């Protein structure tokens, strides 16, 4: 039934437990969702530190009036890279790290639906990140701001003395394009995984809330990223081929010519992506906090169904508010009124979430462990950012605050006080799951209070600066402007905030070095990912669990209380459909738990060998290297290779060849299927078969 080579790979996998597979090669070829999650996480932390360093440079520059530490050009470059890095290379990959690590565990699957595509997503992220940051070594750092407004980003048809003439924005455009492909691939994978690989009995409305957040975020990415793909593609066509999509007039043959291009088109396309993007950044954080708060309040999440609908409502409305970024462009009273209204509307589902978290804590037995501190930190700090956000929905107010430090304060309260707080809390919460070791709680609490105070010192005064009229992105301010005091406070706060991350890094290093293993379920958690060993074996679940409850692991441990039953009934009524439901009403969860425990007891190395996992693959990395080279080729058109009359850029040719070679080899490589099909969709097939196939 299988070829000899196939049996050998099977044998290798059957007898090699995950823990002993280490070394660089195993990481380069891994398609294990947990390892890919860790790769995402480490990458995110590295770029969080790089982005943090850039922030420190900004704050050094602004620490005193008329400072000349950074040149004006360097300042433009640094704030552009700070924003781009933090959004695309720190927060998004950190969220994706948790998607990857947790979602298959939470839904009771052995991996994602397309493991090799998952590896490709990560390597493309790294490729895009490298392209963006290689600009530092090329000496032409992106300098058009993180939203790269045209025509600042344009090169005007041979007029080299105008606007953006270097390769700066090429690095930015190509880098973002590659990152976009990475995010799209990852999102398709997550959506299919969540819809298709749920354990028996896990209906949509029984999924852990973080899995819901992942699903909704992934759908947002799938529908939002194409807009920036088009925006960037048109920008690249403008820059490489000399069209004028975003340029209203330019010199053609020495004469100033009307070309008809419209800079506003960039703003529309960018913000049609850009506003959903801010929900892409915050919804995973909402999901993580919704996992943490119930565990540390020892109560099921209050209003689970409403939380799900709120997520969906935020995502849906998120596509209809982009013009509030453009109130000052003068689109007229009608669009302004409409988008003001939709922006106010979106505060409702967001407020619902805040109240539901408070409702979850209300009357609970709250333990203020570090994850809970950060989660509550989000609830309070995000609320501040949310309130300043609603202020911007009013166009007259927004017109006053647009492009001032008030806006900077707002989005740092939602991105740091929201996303980063939740991600750090989740790091503390899931660290025992991922490593089997517990981060130091005492240091963790110090870390939280330090972060909390420094964060507020760094960002709250920005509200005052903004209202006093200090514009964003100015490299300097005058002696007599009166902004000096608060800028010093902000700078001191920023450096204290940076130090808090050093404390976190120390805590992580100290914990990883220690030998203190922690039990599998240190927080007495609610969901099934905690029912398996920490760190989980490569196949996750020996026996795929059957799910009868939302908080399945609590139900296993403590039985289903009256509240649970009631909630379950309610959920079925509201949801209406019972996809994949396995007779939840009839079964006794306790019996199932007993069965599962029995199965676990039987588990030993022999039993491990019965789980057949997909083979590691080198080809995703090869394809990503091809994309990386092609990306560089788009930026550097020299050296060139001459074939007949054709003159081709060497890097692009190399990139395309590597990419095509990788794709062909990928499609011919058997994934894990005992009866491999040699076609371009082997990946999906192997993945679908992988969780089920038992080795014969």
């Amino acid at each position, binding site marked *: 039934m299988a070829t000899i080579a196939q049996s050998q790979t099977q044998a290798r996998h059957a007898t090699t437990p995950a823990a002993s597979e280490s070394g660089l090669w195993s990481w380069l070829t891994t398609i294990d969702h947990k390892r890919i999650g860790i790769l995402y996480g480490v990458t995110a932390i590295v770029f969080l530190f790089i982005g943090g360093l850039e922030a420190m440079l900004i704050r050094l520059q602004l620490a005193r009036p008329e400072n000349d530490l950074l040149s004006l050009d360097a300042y433009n470059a640094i704030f552009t890279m700070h924003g781009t890095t933090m959004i695309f290379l720190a927060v998004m990959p950190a969220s994706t790290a948790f998607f990857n690590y947790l979602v298959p565990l939470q839904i009771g699957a052995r991996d994602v639906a397309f493991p090799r595509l998952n590896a490709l997503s990560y390597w493309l992220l790294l490729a895009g990140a490298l392209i963006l940051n290689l600009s530092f070594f090329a000496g032409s750092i992106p300098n058009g701001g993180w939203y790269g407004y045209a025509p600042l980003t344009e090169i005007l048809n041979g007029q080299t003395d105008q606007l953006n003439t270097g390769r700066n924005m090429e690095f930015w455009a190509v880098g973002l394009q590659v990152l976009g492909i990475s995010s799209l691939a990852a999102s398709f994978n997550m959506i*299919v995984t969540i819809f298709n690989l749920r354990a028996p009995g896990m209906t949509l409305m029984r999924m852990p809330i973080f899995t819901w957040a992942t699903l909704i975020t992934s759908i947002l990415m799938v529908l939002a990223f194409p807009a920036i793909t088009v925006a960037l*593609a048109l920008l690249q066509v403008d820059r490489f081929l000399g*069209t004028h*999509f975003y340029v209203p007039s330019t010199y053609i043959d020495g004469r100033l*010519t009307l070309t008809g291009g419209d800079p506003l088109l960039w703003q529309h396309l960018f913000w049609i992506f850009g506003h959903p993007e801010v929900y892409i950044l915050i919804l995973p954080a909402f999901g993580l906090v919704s996992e943490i708060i119930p565990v540390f309040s020892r109560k099921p999440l209050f209003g689970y169904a409403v939380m799900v609908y709120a997520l969906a409502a935020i995502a849906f409305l998120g596509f209809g508010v982009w013009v509030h970024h453009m109130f000052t462009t003068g689109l007229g009273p009608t669009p302004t009124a409409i988008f003001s209204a939709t922006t106010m509307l979106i505060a409702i589902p967001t407020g619902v979430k805040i109240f539901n978290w408070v409702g979850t804590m209300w009357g609970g037995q709250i333990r203020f462990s570090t994850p809970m501190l950060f989660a509550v930190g989000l609830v309070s700090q995000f609320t501040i950012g949310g309130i300043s956000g609603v202020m911007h929905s009013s166009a007259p107010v927004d017109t006053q605050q647009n492009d001032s430090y008030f806006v900077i304060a707002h989005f740092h309260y939602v991105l740091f006080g929201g996303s980063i707080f939740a991600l750090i809390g989740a790091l503390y919460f899931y660290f025992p799951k991922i490593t089997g070791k517990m981060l130091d709680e005492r240091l963790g609490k110090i870390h939280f209070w330090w972060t909390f105070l420094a964060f507020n010192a760094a960002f709250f005064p920005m509200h005052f600066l903004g209202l006093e009229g200090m514009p964003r992105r100015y490299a300097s301010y005058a002696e007599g402007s009166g902004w000096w005091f608060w800028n010093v406070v902000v700078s001191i706060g920023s450096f204290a905030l940076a130090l808090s991350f050093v404390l976190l890094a120390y805590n992580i290093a100290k914990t990883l070095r220690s030998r203190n293993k922690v039990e599998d379920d240190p927080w007495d958690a609610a969901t099934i990912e905690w029912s398996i060993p920490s760190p989980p074996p490569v196949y996750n679940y020996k026996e795929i669990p059957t799910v009868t409850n939302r908080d399945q692991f609590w139900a296993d441990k403590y039985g289903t209380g009256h509240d649970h039953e009631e909630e379950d009934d309610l959920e079925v009524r509201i949801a209406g459909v019972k996809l994949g439901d396995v007779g939840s009403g009839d079964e006794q969860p306790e019996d199932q738990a007993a069965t599962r425990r029995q199965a676990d007891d039987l588990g030993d190395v022999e039993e491990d060998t019965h*789980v057949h996992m997909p083979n590691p693959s080198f080809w995703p990395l090869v394809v990503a290297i091809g994309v990386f080279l092609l990306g560089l080729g788009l930026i550097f058109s020299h050296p060139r290779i001459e074939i007949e009359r054709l003159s081709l850029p060497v890097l692009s040719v190399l990139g395309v060849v590597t990419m095509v070679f990788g794709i062909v080899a990928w499609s011919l490589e058997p994934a894990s299927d005992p009866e491999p*099909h040699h*076609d371009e969709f082997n990946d999906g097939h192997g993945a*679908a078969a992988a969780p089920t196939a038992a080795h014969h």
Partner: protein
Amino acid sequence: MATTTLDVQHAGGAVDHGHGHGDSGHGPTSTGIDSKKLLMWWFLGSDGVLFGALIATFMIYRNRAQDLSVGETVAGLVTTGGPFPNEILDQLFTAVSAGVLLFSSFTMVLAVASIGRGNIKAFRVWTIATAMLGGIFLAGQYFEYTEFFHEGLSLQQNIFGASFFVLTGVHGLHVFAGVLWLLGLSLTSFRGGISKKDHTNVEVAGLYWHFIDIVWIVLFTLVYLLPYRDGAHDPEHVDGAMRLVQAIPFF
């Protein structure tokens, strides 16, 4: 399949689905929808947004070059010149190539049907026929582009040229990828690598192919059929709708 797999989806070692493949070759899933097919549907949704953004761009710019050319100069500035859409677009020619692409959807259906019946020979014939029809469409596009270049419409000439070439070019790239995919499938079938159980793989390719056909129907309507405003330099005003009527008897 859809209903029976709901309850037993990947229940670990308890139920053995991995080896039979007597069915259509896809593993059991929570929704009963094959994972590859679900992936393709979401990809198409995403690709739809991509075309949506490109179409929006085109719709904003489709009359702009003509509008700019109303006078010799506007506000003292010279403007980009023609050719303008009414002078250059050949509805009849493109209607024929659109017909070819539409017909390829029919051959694609036949290819999917024949693999479903396990008729590999018919599958080969229809897949290659579909790829060839796609090839003819691309050849038509190549001819059209060359003709336009000769008449002076380039990417850089005016904003109409830029939006026209980018929009139809991205669609052309999609067709090209589809042709490669179909050729890959037929090549695999010659190597004996395709049988009835690969029905889903072919069906997924079919979904993609139908999608790019549907997109072309939209593009053909918006780019070729919907009337343009005339540039001041257009001497012979020909009503776009009239040319459509003239094209209809051809079918």
